[in-house]
């Protein structure tokens, strides 16, 4: 524990700015994965533990498409679409068969899928870690900002993710489709009786969740090492975010992700050995005080 250091930091503006930005960056990629986890849980009541593998697939797809075409944009789009379709397939072929079973049975199924995907990735792309490298467009000196620095790529990442977060939030609250999705979460039988194919809604939520996770993987590819099993820590953090923010809430996922990002960036200074513990502590406190999460509905 290094509380003096934390004290020094929170009294210095530049430290606050830098660490907050850093929390923002960490939180943003997490948000893309956590939003999918949260939506799937909120609408389908399924604990999709395999979501981290979607993220991993996104990174590997990006690696391959970028390697072949040399276009990062193309690679990102391909990853989002590819993983979205994979999510769809996963829902139709596997997870839809255990709707309504025990949570533990769903967990078992997801675990099986994680094992398979981790190994398939190793067979296809090799066991060693890979790195995409920063696309040339982003190879520019970082911005200076209030005493801190923000690399161009991270600025791009923050802006893009925030746009997605806002669009996603608007889509879920303002569009007819979003309204349907929220209605399905509450009363699927009634929605079905109004002539809406809820099976399609379920599949659609997985498609969307997959696309977001694929996108997260693609955006992570230039700055993180790509390796089999890379999804695990992300999915665990996503569940912490989901619990903190409230299951099924996009705003909750955003706030939760940012909170985790801040805990990580300030925790590194104050509790260098206990940042993971801090995250779980936060989760435990939220669960005890408000089990449904900060933005969740009481059930």
């Amino acid at each position, binding site marked *: 524990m290094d509380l003096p250091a934390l004290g020094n930091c929170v009294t210095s503006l530049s430290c606050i700015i830098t660490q907050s930005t850093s929390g923002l960056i960490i939180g943003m990629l997490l948000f893309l994965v956590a939003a999918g986890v949260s939506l799937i849980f909120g609408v389908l009541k399924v604990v999709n533990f395999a979501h981290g593998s979607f993220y991993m697939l996104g990174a590997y797809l990006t690696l391959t498409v970028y390697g072949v075409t040399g276009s990062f944009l193309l690679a990102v789009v391909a990853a989002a679409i590819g993983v979205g379709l994979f999510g769809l397939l996963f829902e139709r072929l596997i997870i839809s*068969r*255990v709707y309504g079973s025990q*949570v533990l049975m769903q967990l*078992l199924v997801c675990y099986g899928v994680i094992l398979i995907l981790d190994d*398939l990735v190793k067979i296809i792309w090799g066991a060693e870690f890979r790195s995409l490298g920063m696309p040339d467009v982003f190879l520019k000196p970082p911005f200076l900002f209030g005493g801190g620095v923000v690399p161009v790529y991270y600025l791009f990442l923050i802006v893009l993710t925030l746009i997605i977060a806002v669009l996603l939030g608007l889509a879920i609250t303002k569009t007819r489709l979003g309204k349907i999705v929220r209605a399905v979460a509450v009363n699927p039988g009634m929605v079905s009786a109004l002539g809406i194919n809820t099976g399609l809604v379920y599949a659609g939520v997985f498609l969307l969740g997959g696309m977001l996770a694929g996108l997260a993987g693609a955006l992570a590819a230039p700055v993180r090492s790509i390796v089999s099993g890379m999804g695990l820590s992300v999915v665990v953090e996503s569940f912490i975010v989901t*619990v903190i923010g409230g299951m099924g809430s996009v705003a909750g996922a955003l706030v939760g992700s940012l909170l985790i990002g801040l805990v990580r960036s300030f925790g590194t200074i104050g509790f260098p050995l206990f940042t993971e513990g801090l995250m779980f502590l936060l989760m*435990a406190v939220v669960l005890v005080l408000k089990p449904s999460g900060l933005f969740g509905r009481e059930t």
Partner: protein
Amino acid sequence: MMKSSFLRDCLIALAAFAILAVLPFVYPSRGMSDFVIRLAAFGIFATSLNLLVGYAGLESFGHGLFFGLGAYTFALTMQKLGTSIPVAFALTILLSVVVACVVGAICVRLKEIYFAFLTLAFQMLLHSLIIAWTPLTGGDQGLTGGVPRPPFLGIRLDQPYHLYLFCGGLLVLCLLLMRHIVQSPFGYTLRMIRDNPARATFLGVQVWRMRLAAFVIAGAFGSIGGMVMSLFVSGAFPDFAYWTISGEAIFMIMLGGTTVFFGPLAGAIMLLMLNDAVTKLTEHYGLVLGIIILMFALGLRKGFMDYLAEWWRGRQMSSVAAPAATQARPLPAQPVKVAGE
């Protein structure tokens, strides 16, 4: 209902212990005895988790808390205090009970998925503590330097056969005790709570107290699993408190079955053998195990022993020529639920 007296169970336990005792002479293989020791650790651990999941209806994601706590407390007590093994055992169980009381009191009031996540959070807090408290626990490196095994009551755990028999005996003893617990009035109270907590309340049962008691008992047995593992590897590692260890126990009970007492033990045997066999045969362990898991989960949709038990019941029913067709038939799939029905 199968009636079974405690005496009968004791006799079966004795017989099982006797078989374990002579097994190495008939089939002398250290591999076999290692397997039994590991089975003791995971068999006790998984069965204790099933006290919660299968009997009390509490789906815990964080039962590994007690596995890790047991392994570390035991190993540390032996290393630092130099007590005898029975004393370390007693201290470990005591600590686990205290921790389970505190954690349980906070957790059991939450329902379903929230309970699951909160138990997970507590387990990960222990894991973080182990990692952070390096001077005591050795941090991520694990508690190295070996766990001393001083002889007690003529039992010398540094001798392979003694260790084997001790762990095997513990397995039999713990299973006997847990079997007794689930067959006790308390065990049936847990079943009531699992089936219908609201109804149990209307029969005068303080549901949360019973759940807490179950949590504490399961925690105490879970820590014994951890102690056996610590004896086996002669140390303790942070992995023992990581969420994956809870995951493994969950997979054991889901593979083996939750409604039959020996389901978790069967699951432990299956998963351990599967693990050992598959790692031996192929480098693509995950691929093979994953496919097997999916076949089980999507094919049987229930644990192996549950499946057998149902099949057996079905057979008996049909052979007795069920008085009414509806009696032998399980509940059909629920009609599409319209909320507020």
